[in-house]
């Protein structure tokens, strides 16, 4: 294997060799290398296959904008990531990487047949090809597209890493640690402002890392950089965050930073987060994002070995790697000439500099002459050769009037190109900052901003080190001053020797003597979009760049068109015969570079994904074998299976116990609101449908709450403890919503009412004791309350003591049996539960869960808001007209109940259903039809809302909403299911004890 490392060059640590692998082959690199530089040092250019045509591809860039060199990375211990950009991946001992989108191997890839069929896969291929026949869609087209779609392998194991997140506040956030960003951070830091400086790269410096020969204020660039790093580190008010990408810029200077913490480590410390999301709120922002070099668009511009000139210069100067032994440079911009000079000085043969421009600054030509580099000014590139690596380039002179002359072929093993530089205005654009077209520089520059933000350096078109330093310093000083920390001192001035030359032109495809309709001249390397695709889109009538982008997919890959947008725009502008600003630019959106889901999720995964609320009795349920189910944020005991029982048998046993003796149920999750004050009853009258004025203290009432639209929102039993005090219960899931609604009315509609609302859900443990033996069980434990039927009947409430602790005792039932709901302060909940469980042994007391509760209440015709109602049921629809205070002048939702639609008699109404086959338990949600023999699509008249096996009745029962259901009592309806069409009879909703004898037993 050849060695392309150049002695004495670069910043990699030559004393620290690291071994890594690529596609199963072991290589060595140095600490400080990226995967790209380390592979190039080993002479490897071919690293991947392109997305659509499976064309061999190499490294195009040396940075985060890389479209080609995407690899799968295995960092060990299940840490696998697809589509990692080799140009930013730091190598470490033991790193394993693999190429993507090839089979069976990178050098021999079957999918490359697409490349010879490229005329078929033109823009809009999918739209045009997969149109008909319609029946092909599910069976043929979709599976085909799915298997061809996507790039890289998704990891199959769960992500073993943890991710952190934090908030931060600062006076000045500087994004980008190149010349401009460093100067800005120095000024802001010296002013005393709190500063965060972030940069996506491993170390600060930006382009300075590739410019060792530049002199800044008399110091060589890297010496200046070292001093600057030390100066920043010595300022306690400055936080420097390398390996940290500003991914999105949001309202009011809120910027998301993704900091990579462990991806570069061979051994990840236990528990160390992989990445950290910084959510920064900055008073002032300085964007110094630099610029991205543009490729040139010509046939064969995508072969391995064809790369951006600036990237080749970075590999040489920063990593000490030559990208070839014989290079050709093709350019429309001065900067590429410097790459040629640096390579020539490092001993690389530069076969030619081909400059498409007619004239070039004379000092560049004389410098080339001095290095004996052949120059071809006014020439174009019309093709390249080399299957897995470029081997030659075809060049032609361009005569007067653009006539392309005869071709010459130059052998080379690397072709460096530059079409100029695009300022990175991505973050600025995230804030809806406007962009204006700069005709001289052929680039979009930031216009009017929407945030407290400044741009500096190449990111706003100020190219060259001196310009960047001074622009950055001015921005940093001004930002600090605007943040209230400025010293008013003049920003530092910078003297720079060894500036690059930065003039050039930008344009569409390079001129060619061949048929441009067949040229494989790539614009978007990652999505395989060629110039001819964009021209085709324009010919087919697309005029807006937004449409052209979507039709051709230009700029829609994971690199978001960092290297392709402007070239695509130039081609589209030429095809449309309209100037670039008239064609427009597509919108940049966060994140700036691909960001892991883990970073966004942060701590919110696994057990921390959401809150699990547990009652004080939850631990007992767990110890006693409960199976749990989630109910809103709560976990609730679902049923308590005994050995050998399935859910069905357990629930049947639990139901029987309640109906024949006594069962106990943890009802602590019920929402509870304490409503207190002189106007409490008036407030209740206005909120709930029922009348409350005459409800005596010590009595309860079922309360029904509507929205202003007249539909049922919530319900619950409400006890009046005193003239001015109500104990309101709500559904488990509705508690917060109901309190919010009450607060809204109280604060904004009736602020004159003297009422206070307090959530007491978690202050009370609630034990429901239900069954004919319930009273006998608790009587010995209750003090201060006469439990006799006469003194404490159904729907009574009283305060007293139970088991020696205070209680609010409710005589209520959600089962149809004699029952109590015992409220005790939460801290006593479990003790009281255990005491009653122990005492209840003589009655065979049975703990039951939510499933049994559901069955028992359904047997009695009690609804569950949210299960039997869905926000479209009125009280009358639900059969609850009796709960509406007809004589009350007003309550929330009352006016809506008399709207014409609400009075229609074909509204869906809640009814009972009994299946013809008593063993059939209908599926909840199943649709209901009147005539099962009607043609499909059938007319659906309603659906099943609740359905259970009733052990008490030895058959199934169900509720359903059915159009005009109550007037259809006794009629048969049909429930078509995949296996069978079930028939059922419409009935009333009360299946057990319709006379309510048991309630008062």
């Amino acid at each position, binding site marked *: 294997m050849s060695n392309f490392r150049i002695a004495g060059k670069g910043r990699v640590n030559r004393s620290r060799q690291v071994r890594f692998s690529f596609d199963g082959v072991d290589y060595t690199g140095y600490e400080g290398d990226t995967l790209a530089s380390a592979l190039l040092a080993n002479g490897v250019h071919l690293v991947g296959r392109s997305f659509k045509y499976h064309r061999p591809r190499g490294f195009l860039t040396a940075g985060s904008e890389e479209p080609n060199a995407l690899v799968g990375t295995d960092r060990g211990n299940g840490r696998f990531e697809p589509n990692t950009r080799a140009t930013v991946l730091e190598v470490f001992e033991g790193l394993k990487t693999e190429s993507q989108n090839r089979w069976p191997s990178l050098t021999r890839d079957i999918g490359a047949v697409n490349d010879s069929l490229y005329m078929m896969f033109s823009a809009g291929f999918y739209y045009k090809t997969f149109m008909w026949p319609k029946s092909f869609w599910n069976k043929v087209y979709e599976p085909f597209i799915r298997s061809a779609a996507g790039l890289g392998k998704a990891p199959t194991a769960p992500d073993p890493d943890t991710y952190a997140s934090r908030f931060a506040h600062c006076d000045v956030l500087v994004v980008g640690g190149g010349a401009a960003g460093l100067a800005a951070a120095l000024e802001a830091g010296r002013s005393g402002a709190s500063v965060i400086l972030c940069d996506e790269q491993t170390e600060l410096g930006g382009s300075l890392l590739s410019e060792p020969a530049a002199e800044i204020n008399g110091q060589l660039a890297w010496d200046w950089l070292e001093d600057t790093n030390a100066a920043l580190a010595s300022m306690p008010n400055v936080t420097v965050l390398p390996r940290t990408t500003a991914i999105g810029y*949001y*309202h009011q200077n809120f910027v998301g930073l993704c900091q990579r913490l462990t991806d570069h480590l061979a051994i990840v410390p236990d528990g160390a987060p992989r990445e950290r999301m910084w959510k920064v709120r900055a008073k002032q922002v300085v964007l110094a994002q630099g610029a991205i070099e543009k490729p040139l668009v010509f046939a064969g511009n995508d072969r391995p070995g064809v790369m951006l000139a600036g990237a080749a210069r970075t590999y040489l100067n920063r990593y000490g790697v030559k990208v070839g032994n014989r290079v050709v440079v093709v350019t429309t911009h001065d900067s590429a000439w410097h790459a040629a000079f640096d390579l020539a000085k490092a001993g690389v043969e530069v076969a030619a500099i081909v400059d498409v421009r007619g004239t070039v600054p004379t000092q560049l030509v004389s410098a080339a002459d001095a290095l004996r580099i052949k120059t071809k000014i006014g020439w174009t590139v019309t093709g390249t050769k080399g299957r897995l690596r470029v081997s030659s380039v075809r060049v032609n002179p361009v005569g007067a009037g653009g006539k392309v002359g005869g071709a010459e072929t130059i052998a080379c093993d690397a072709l460096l190109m530059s079409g100029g530089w695009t300022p990175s205005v991505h973050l600025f654009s995230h804030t809806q900052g406007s962009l204006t077209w700069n005709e001289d520089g052929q680039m979009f520059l930031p216009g009017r901003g929407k945030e407290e933000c400044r741009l500096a350096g190449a990111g706003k078109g100020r190219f060259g080190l001196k310009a960047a330093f001074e622009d950055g310093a001015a921005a940093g000083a001004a930002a600090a001053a605007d*943040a209230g920390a400025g010293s008013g001192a003049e920003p530092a001035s910078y003297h720079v020797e060894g500036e690059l030359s930065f003039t050039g032109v930008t344009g569409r495809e390079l001129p060619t003597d061949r048929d441009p309709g067949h040229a494989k001249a790539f614009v978007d390397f990652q999505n395989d979009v060629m110039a001819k695709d964009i021209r085709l889109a324009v010919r087919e009538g697309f005029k807006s760049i937004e449409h052209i982008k979507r039709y051709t997919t230009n700029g829609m890959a994971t690199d978001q068109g960092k290297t392709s947008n402007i070239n695509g725009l130039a081609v589209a502008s030429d095809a449309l015969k309209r100037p670039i600003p008239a064609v427009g630019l597509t919108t940049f959106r966060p994140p700036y570079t691909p960001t892991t889901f883990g970073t966004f999720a942060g701590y919110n995964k696994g057990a921390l994904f959401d809150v699990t609320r547990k009652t004080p009795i939850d631990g007992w349920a767990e110890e006693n074998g409960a199976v749990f189910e989630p109910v809103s944020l709560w976990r609730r005991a679902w049923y308590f299976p005994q050995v050998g029982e399935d859910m069905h048998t357990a629930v049947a046993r639990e139901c029987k116990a309640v109906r024949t003796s006594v069962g106990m149920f943890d009802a602590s999750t019920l929402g509870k609101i304490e409503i207190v004050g002189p106007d409490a009853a008036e407030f209740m009258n206005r909120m709930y449908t029922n009348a409350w004025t005459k409800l005596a203290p010590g009595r309860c009432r079922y309360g029904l709450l509507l929205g202003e639209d007249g539909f049922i929102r919530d319900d619950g039993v409400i006890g009046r403890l005193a003239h001015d005090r109500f104990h309101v219960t709500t559904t488990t899931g509705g508690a917060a919503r109901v309190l919010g609604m009450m607060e*809204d009315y109280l604060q904004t509609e009736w602020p004159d009412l003297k009422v206070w609302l307090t959530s007491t859900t978690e202050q009370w443990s609630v034990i429901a004791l239900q069954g004919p033996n319930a009273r006998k069980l608790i009587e010995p434990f209750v003090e201060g309350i006469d439990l006799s039927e006469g003194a404490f009947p159904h729907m009574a409430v009283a305060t007293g003591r139970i088991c020696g602790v205070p209680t609010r005792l409710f005589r209520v039932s959600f089962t149809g049996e004699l029952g109590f709901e015992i409220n005790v302060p939460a801290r006593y909940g479990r003790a009281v539960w255990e005491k009653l469980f122990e005492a209840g042994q003589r009655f065979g007391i049975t703990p039951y869960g939510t499933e049994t509760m559901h069955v028992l209440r359904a047997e009695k015709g009690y609804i569950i808001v949210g299960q039997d109602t869905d926000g479209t049921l009125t009280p009358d629809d639900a059969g609850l007209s009796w709960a509406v205070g007809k004589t009350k*002048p007003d309550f929330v939702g009352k006016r809506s109940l008399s*709207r014409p639609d609400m009075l229609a008699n074909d509204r869906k109404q809640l009814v009972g259903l009994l299946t013809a086959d008593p063993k059939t338990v209908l599926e909840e949600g199943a649709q209901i039809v009147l005539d099962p023999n009607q043609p499909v699509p059938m007319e659906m008249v309603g659906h099943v809302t609740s359905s259970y096996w009733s052990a008490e009745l030895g058959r199934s029962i169900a509720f359903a909403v059915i159009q005009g259901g109550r007037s259809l009592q006794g009629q048969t309806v049909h429930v078509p299911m995949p296996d069978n069409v079930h028939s059922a009879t419409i009935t009333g909703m009360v299946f057990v004890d319709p006379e309510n004898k048991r309630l008062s037993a």
Partner: protein
Amino acid sequence: MLLIRCPYCEAERPELEFTYAGEAHIARPADPSALSDDEWRDFLFIRTNPRGRHFERWRHMHGCGRFFNAVRDTVTDKFAMTYKAGAPRPSDEEIALAASSVKEARP
């Protein structure tokens, strides 16, 4: 994420602490039964949905819990001002004044 000034706490807090509560200055009629069906429909469902200045309600849910009103631009998302529930709809001059003082407070 927006910063929102709670007029009760008299402090700017991140949007995370707040919940949106619909258009402001739509008072519940004193006697709904006196309204025609169309008038009641308008109260229930018809909103201005403007492009630009919007008067709207927010609640400092994870703070003081109070409902308050705000003037926000639906295009830029920027808040011009917030004010207490029950206060009258501010005039153009008041909004302009508040917006400029917000600007001065956070240069």
